[in-house]
């Protein structure tokens, strides 16, 4: 983590617009799948979404990694799988992760999730769609409830 000025873009949820349709969740799962097919992603590849749609009555919002300026997960990661790059983006290396769940335990947004299925045990979280260039959730959101924007 060097001290270069962060010029990070991240996804901002807009509670007022979120209609809890979960398109973000499905889109996320889909683009992170091998098949790039939502049904297969869920049913064959057993993937889980990195964004979480929270609903409570009228209030709903989609939450994903906030790429904190000083991330708790980074502090607590015992394997060094979580790193912060020069832009400020927080990366979680799923290969390196040993599944100690410390990040799950400390993330104030609940944005680091445990993956415990079959033999695989690791944490995963929003990677801002890495190579895709643009977060799938934002693109999928039908009500402009997610905005990809520079950090404020």
């Amino acid at each position, binding site marked *: 983590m060097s001290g270069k000025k962060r010029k990070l873009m991240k996804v901002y949820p807009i509670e007022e617009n979120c209609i809890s349709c979960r398109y973000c969740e*499905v889109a996320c799962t889909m683009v992170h799948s091998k098949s790039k097919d939502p049904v297969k992603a869920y049913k064959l590849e057993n993937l889980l979404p990195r964004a979480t749609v929270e609903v409570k*009555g009228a209030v709903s919002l989609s939450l994903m990694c906030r790429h904190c300026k000083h991330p708790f997960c980074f502090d607590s990661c015992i394997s060094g799988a979580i790193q912060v790059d020069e832009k400020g983006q927080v990366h979680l290396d799923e290969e390196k992760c040993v599944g100690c769940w410390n990040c799950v335990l400390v993330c104030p947004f609940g944005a680091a999730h445990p993956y415990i299925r079959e033999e695989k045990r690791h944490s995963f979280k929003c990677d801002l769609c890495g190579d895709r260039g643009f977060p799938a959730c934002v693109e999928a959101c039908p009500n402009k409830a997610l905005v990809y924007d520079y950090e404020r």
Partner: protein
Amino acid sequence: MLFKKPQVAFYPFMVLRDDYKCIRCKSCVDQCSFDATYYDEDLDMVLNRHENCVNCKRCEAFCPTDAIKVIKNPSTFHPDANWTAEALRDIHTQMLTGAVILTSTGNDKPIRNYFDHLLLDACQVTNPPIDPLREPMELKTFIGRKSDQLEFDEDGISIKTTIGKQLELEIPVLFSAMSYGSINLNLQKAMARAAKEFGTYWNTGEGGLHKSLREFKDCTIVQVASGRFGVDLEYLETSAAIEIKIGQGAKPGIGGHLPGEKVNEGIAETRMIPVGSDAISPAPHHDIYSIEDLRQLIYALKEATNYEKPVFVKIAAVHNVAAIACGIAHAGADAVVIDGVRGGTGATPKSLRDHVGIPIELAIAAVDDRLRKEGLRNEVSLIAAGGFRNAVDVLKAIALGADAVYIGTVAKIAAGCTQCQQCHTGRCAWGITTNDPKLAKRLNPDIVAENLYNLLRAWAHDIKELLGAMGINAIESIKGNRLRLRSWGLTEQENKILGVLPAGM
């Protein structure tokens, strides 16, 4: 169907679900505002209560894997042209409740749509069509009282005549009155923005003007209805024009009830009534029991606003609409709005929606004719409303004699409405006719404002294309120009009322 009335089993719609494609994302469960979809944890399946389904298609639209289709229940009553499923279900409803059947949206009966029987003209050889893409095309329309002639000063250039304040429209289409309460603030916001952006007007309806919309003053028509909700001097001043609502096409002759449970803080404040109290609009204005009373109110409004605002009077198109419209013109209104039998609503007894009033096409023709006969046509603008579906309908209405057209249902559809006729339940899954905060936010004013703007833009282009084909480059040249209309499949009497010739003549 345990613990339910047996008739509930005869539901009209059902939800088909491809369980293989269902990924249990539960989007449909969350989207269904009619409690027709639920997730069972033990079965790990999404299931349906078909009897609650209203065919709003929200789940269908929002299933990310396209696993859902809502269909008409294939199980039918005994096929009978007389005792239709609707007739049977209505009896069930009334025998179980002893109540008037409430419904919403516009008339769904196959009342002849005369627009579909009218054809427009085009230029060939003897005169040239105009290419609207390159050449000027004017749609600017003025709504307001004009005078019959102009008087000049002696200098030959200064005009002595003064005319009433006019509304300037860039397209002869305005957004119809839909009150805050019947629809939510988001749609009002969207309409206001689109209207402002495009250069037309939107109408508050009878629910008052929310404070957040005051900035749209110059493109707002404020309505004064029998409930007088939200009406005070400030409200009247925050407007481009004032509309007195006497009646509405979907429910001529009755008022409206906004049920108390829909009256939230915002609505209460805007309407100036307590939270949770019914907002009842009486059938009549209790200060208008006769035409001279209408004049009294028109002039009250003019007095209150120093004669600075045009005053419209909106009535439902009823049998004697032409005479009434003339009376309204006499009473001093600057514009008469007539709302046809296909006009929409947020709630109305079914019997009224389907059986009261007359089609707007006939009403326009009759009113325009009568106003001309009385020499009043210049005195008053004529705005038609109720059942306009596209730019062609608008143009045909103008050719029949309207100055401009109000669109309400179209705006709703542009905002997502699928015409499921459940506005009155306040559960609109598309977030249009509901003020449930969870549902209302489904309508994002930013998106819908853009959609509405696009729609107006498309319609404007459409009208220009049609005008161009007729060799007309200004909308006023088609106004009342029934010669450019022909009809097909209508009776002689109908042609006479519409003032059009049958095709071929």
